């Protein structure tokens, strides 16, 4: 097992993956959890990004918003990532080869880097612009980028379900 695709073939053959793939209830439930957690993780991320852009909740200091929303965002992200990983396990070979899945991972990585850069910056400088209706350019840039990148993640995620660019099933066989 040296390449990712070999790993995917191995994973697809495990009893857990097969049972999950063929389940009547478990797959739709995990899928629903993954989609509905958009409200928790992404919904709150959008609220924070809009605040950084100066477009919402002008009376709420940025640091307070971050402090109160962060536990929910982290919890939402953990549920999203776990359910997403499970969904991958249900159909690893097709998903791995799917172009939208790969794009989604790239946008996820970019969104993660953007968030990390922002948090390092914000932890040093927030007190100075905490109550500004329009935070500094760098913070607004981070908020705007975050909105765009997460929108791309959602769109690519939805498109994984469609098979326009899927490889010929024959070539999927080992």
């Amino acid at each position, binding site marked *: 097992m040296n390449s990712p695709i070999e790993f995917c073939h191995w994973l697809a053959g495990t009893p857990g993956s097969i049972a999950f793939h063929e389940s009547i209830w478990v797959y*739709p439930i995990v899928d629903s959890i993954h*989609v509905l957690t958009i409200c928790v993780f992404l*919904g709150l991320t959008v*609220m924070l990004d809009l605040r950084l852009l100066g477009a919402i909740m002008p009376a709420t200091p940025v640091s307070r918003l971050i402090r109160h929303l962060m536990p929910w965002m982290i919890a939402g992200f953990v549920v999203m990532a776990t359910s997403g990983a499970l969904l991958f396990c249900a159909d690893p070979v097709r998903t791995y080869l799917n172009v939208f899945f790969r794009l989604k991972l790239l946008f996820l990585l970019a969104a993660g880097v953007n968030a990390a850069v922002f948090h390092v910056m914000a932890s040093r400088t927030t007190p100075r612009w905490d109550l500004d209706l329009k935070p500094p350019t760098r913070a607004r840039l981070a908020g705007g980028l975050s909105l765009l990148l997460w929108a791309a993640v*959602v769109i690519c995620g939805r498109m994984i379900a469609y098979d326009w660019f899927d490889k010929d099933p024959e070539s999927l066989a080992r």
Partner: protein
Amino acid sequence: MSVPAVFTWCETSWIGEGIRVSSWLFPVIESLHLLGLAVIGGTVLVVNLSLLGLGPGSRSAAQLWHDTRPWFVGSLAVMLGSGLLMFMSEAEKLYYHDAFWVKMSALLVSLVFTVTVQRRTVLGGPDRVSTLRSRAVGLVSLLLWFVVGAGGRWIGFS
């Protein structure tokens, strides 16, 4: 016109037909619906978390309500618009789909609850509304919206 006739009219209209024959229109509209979900979910959560005493500024639910209203209304419009388009492309199937009726009933109840009970509770402020009532309203609202979302996802299965 009977209800099934309206559904059939929707599905056979040029809009319903156009979405159905296109291979990419439905997924694009679905994506728009999901992006709207993120925004409306954020506004609903921020207000309800603060009613539950868990959100940003538990003392300013009324402020958050005012601040998030334009985004709630805007994202609701996106959700209703994109939802209507998806409905039109498969209306006849949805007529026989329990999840569709569950979702639409829950949506109606959620919206009525939001503009009546929840609005009064939020705008009443902590001086006139008991903590227990605030929390109960926040919880009921979250549950109602959960049924709307879960019903919506379930329409896609089967």
